[in-house]
């Protein structure tokens, strides 16, 4: 993939996640911070499907943005074909892993499998 396409994705995920993370944080401030973190309140949030969907989107956007940023930093620190391939595929793998792990939490909780 061309670097300009990767960076357009990097900027796009940044802008989109700003808006959605702001909503995520506001949810914690509506009831009072500690009350919003109580078990029942959190379960209710997950079972509200639009909110669960929003969390899933935040998870994907931030994983892509964060691990692409890490990839850029690592590529600048050391060069070489083996290292660069390992960093690229390692970051993609880490991205996928965190998305899968987070999605498992969101899916199971929103489907009431807790």
């Amino acid at each position, binding site marked *: 993939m*061309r*670097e*300009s396409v*990767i*960076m*357009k994705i990097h*900027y796009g995920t940044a802008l989109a996640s700003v808006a959605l993370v702001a909503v995520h944080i506001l949810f914690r401030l509506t009831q009072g911070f500690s009350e919003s973190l109580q078990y029942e309140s959190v379960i209710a949030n997950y079972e509200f499907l639009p909110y669960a969907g929003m969390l899933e989107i935040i998870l994907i956007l931030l994983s892509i943005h964060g691990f692409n940023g890490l990839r*850029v930093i690592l*590529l*600048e*620190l*050391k*060069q070489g074909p083996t290292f*660069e391939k390992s960093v690229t595929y390692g970051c993609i793998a880490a991205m996928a892993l965190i998305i899968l792990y987070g999605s498992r939490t969101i899916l199971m909780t929103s489907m009431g499998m807790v």
Partner: protein
Amino acid sequence: MTSEGLQISKEESGVMVSPTKTITLRISRYNPKINNESKFDEFKIPYQRWTTVLDAILEVKKHLDHSVAVRYSCRQASCGSCGMKINGRPALACFTKISDLNSDVITIEPMNNFPIIRDLAVSFERMFSTHKKIKPYIINEVSEINPGTKEFLQTPEDVEKYIQFSSCIKCGLCNSACPTMATDSLFIGPQALAQAYRYVADNRDKGKDDRLKIIDDSHGIFRCHFAGSCSQVCPKGVDPAMGIQLLRGYLLGFRD
């Protein structure tokens, strides 16, 4: 008229003579063929208000140690030869006055991110090769001036769009200051990127797509993070950071 009657005017100079002071120069000495690591030699040099760092280094060579290796030429900030790290910051030695540094000790080292040949002289091979890579010439399929025309026409407004970037004297200070160049051996560098913009912005040039393809690389324009250090150190006002962001605008779709 007799000489007694003629009052010869006394020439009085309005120029204030600057008092001579002494400064300590710490010059990095390193010969990769002989030494394992660099060391500093100290020299005490007299200086005046207008003495430049290059003047001081040449004083060292003249009277104290003629083996100090330094590259210089024009002594007027137009050739770009005397780039070096002065008190931790890349600068042209001929364009830096000792009195402006406000320091009793001046540490002079070779520019970072350039292989050292000896002492203060560094190799520009990498910078020249990255510069060549971006095709630093007008690309235009019209190789001969058409009969009936005199020249490729350019209005003063067309010239204003790129003339700033054509002031580049290839001194390498920008590449030395760049934080990405500090760790990335494959980064194309602010000098080459600014020159790429110089040609893309020139309306006589038709090679924009070629150059954009060259810089759209994992160690190309997107490894610039707009830290702006290149523009901070540029002695000719080229402002490579501006050129790079304007060039990136083409790739991101902000300009076409």
